[in-house]
């Protein structure tokens, strides 16, 4: 999202919540995906060992990352792949633009890469006259709608088929009012086939990069990464430094976890292993840091770099399901996005660790056992300490601390509250009170526990 965001998660969620039937639909759809994940996981008796093993492999990766990166680079170069390094988003975008402009290429087809979303590559290239077309169906839909993806695995999960029909009618010439997913998918297939056949450059993400062999693996169901990469003269793959795994055999752990966690499928349709370029063609890899090495140094948060981008934490999150991906105003939404984003910009994303009930469901479904809800809680503390917490919340907390530290004040406040609930409920049961928005205020008791206890003691005597 390139536009300057002034609204925080709560405000954006409020916009999403205006349409209640849509919220229910969004909630139910994602819960259904979560339920499919459970069925797939429960089919494997060794599931928990698989998660633990994956987590330990990633632990080893993070503790030897510089060595593995060097090893991966050396082996990739041996395979004939050209390796580039980008310290930040700006350098990543410059490298890719230069690769294209040096070859006189002004059109590119791209498969899913959340890293390029994080770097705002599309906007950068389009501003410089390069036409970029996203080829994943969901990404193409949101691209045509002028929106960012709202989910890392299901980019247009927030859109109804009728809306997609309207978008396709406007941009791809499908019949007006057509909303059959089969017909819409066929329309996209025809449109994108022409794109695949005419683009000289293709960009893909990377799911796993194997240090031992210098190969990298891309997982898709649609086959769009392969159609783009095999038909283009130059294939550029963007990867974050944390995508490394030590050995090829470790793919046998991660590929078993990835899609079962994501959608409940046993594996994606295609798990493509790129090792060498085709004769006469080029493969380039751009290895990107963009804040990851800083996160690696944050003891409490480094585990977030284990993430394999399955999206399970989003599907299970009660806040994500009811607030929508766009309310997180960052490329990676949901619980994992909320612990990744503050590392990039603590001020801009200070609201995100608070967009959680800390229920812990995210940590329970995470295939690499990231302690997501613990990290959300820890980020809150860091954000408050660094002075980035939301103003209203800081004031309320200070007021509360002041009241709670004085017994007299506490008793007076309690009395006042009970009086208000009893005689003037309208003073709190209104839109001015944020707590009331989605809740009824409680019925006030006649007296406080303290008052009752005192009275009882008096009666005894």
């Amino acid at each position: 999202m390139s536009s300057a965001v002034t609204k925080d998660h709560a405000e954006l969620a409020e916009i999403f919540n205006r349409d209640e039937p849509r919220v229910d639909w969004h909630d139910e759809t994602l819960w259904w995906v979560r339920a499919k994940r459970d069925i797939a996981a429960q089919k494997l008796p060794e599931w928990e060992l698989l998660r633990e093993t994956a987590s330990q492999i990633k632990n080893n990766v993070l503790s030897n990352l510089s060595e593995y990166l060097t090893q991966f680079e050396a082996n990739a170069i041996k395979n004939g792949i050209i390796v580039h390094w980008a310290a930040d988003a700006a350098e990543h975008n410059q490298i890719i633009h230069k690769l294209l402009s040096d070859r006189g290429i002004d059109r590119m087809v791209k498969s899913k890469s959340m890293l390029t979303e994080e770097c705002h590559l599309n906007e950068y290239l389009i501003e410089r006259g390069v036409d970029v077309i996203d080829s994943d169906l969901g990404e193409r839909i949101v691209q045509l709608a002028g929106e960012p993806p709202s989910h890392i695995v299901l980019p247009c999960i927030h859109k109804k088929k009728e809306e997609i029909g309207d978008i396709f009618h406007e941009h791809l010439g499908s019949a007006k009012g057509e909303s059959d997913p089969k017909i819409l998918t066929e329309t996209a297939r025809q449109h994108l086939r022409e794109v695949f056949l005419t683009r000289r450059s293709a960009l893909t993400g990377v799911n796993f990069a194997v240090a031992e062999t210098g190969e990298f693996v891309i997982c898709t169901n649609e086959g769009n990464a392969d159609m783009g990469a095999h038909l283009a003269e130059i294939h550029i793959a963007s990867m974050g430094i944390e995508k490394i795994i030590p050995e090829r055999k470790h793919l046998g752990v991660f590929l078993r976890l990835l899609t079962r966690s994501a959608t409940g499928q046993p594996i994606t349709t295609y798990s493509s292993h790129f090792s060498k370029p085709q004769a006469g063609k080029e493969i380039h890899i751009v290895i990107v840091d963009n804040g990851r090495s800083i996160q690696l140094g944050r003891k409490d948060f480094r585990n977030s770099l284990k993430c394999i981008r399955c999206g399970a934490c989003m599907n299970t999150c009660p806040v994500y399901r009811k607030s929508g991906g766009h309310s997180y105003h960052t490329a990676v939404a949901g619980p994992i996005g909320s612990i990744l984003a503050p590392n990039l910009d603590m001020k801009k994303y200070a609201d995100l660790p608070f967009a959680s009930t800390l229920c812990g469901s995210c940590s329970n479904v995470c295939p690499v056992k990231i302690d997501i809800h613990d990290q959300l809680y820890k980020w809150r503390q860091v954000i408050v300490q660094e002075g980035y917490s939301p103003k209203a919340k800081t004031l309320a907390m200070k007021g509360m601390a002041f009241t709670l530290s004085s017994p007299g004040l506490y008793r007076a406040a309690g009395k006042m509250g009970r009086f208000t609930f009893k005689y003037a409920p309208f003073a709190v049961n209104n839109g001015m009170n944020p707590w009331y928005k989605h809740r009824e205020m409680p019925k006030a008791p006649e007296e406080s526990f303290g008052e009752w206890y005192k009275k009882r003691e008096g009666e005894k005597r």
Partner: protein
Amino acid sequence: MSREKILAAVKANQFTSAELPDLNVLASLTATDANLVEKYTAIASAGGSFVYEVADLEAIKTILQKEFKPGVQVISGVAGLTDYTDAASVVHELSHSFANVELTILQSNLGVAENGALWLTEEQMHIRVLPFIAQHLAIVIDKNNFVPTMAQAYEKIGDARYGYGAFISGPSKTADIEQSLVIGAHGPRSLSVFIIT
């Protein structure tokens, strides 16, 4: 140079070394010889593949004759299936020239029962784009070439060298529109698997 800067920053922030876990437990837990073809067939079928058990290559030809109209472009990379354009004879052609291929037939020597995936390297594909660009894909595999899970699959692959390889587990598909499954996204609209018994 960003390379040195990144590697130095990563090195400075790496924490104490953690050991790699042992994968043997997972491999032995999942090892089984029981009914791999049966399990593969059930899972691949659920994933949208058409699975046939056939006695020989002749039986495959008979089925393909029924399924595909005469005159459509068919490319075969399978030794012995010679009634079609031989993939080896077109390796030097531009990948784009296969845009109108109706059916590609390829060999796989490794199938995975737990997820319906078949492993093919560039050697069996002949041309990387062939299993993707065709409207339909057929893969031939011997019944003895199945393993239970990905753990055993990567044991079999070992340290083999290839320029490109892929696990293919079904027809190309998407559920991006309201989570309703549509077969035939950008790649083949169908996958037929012929298991030679």
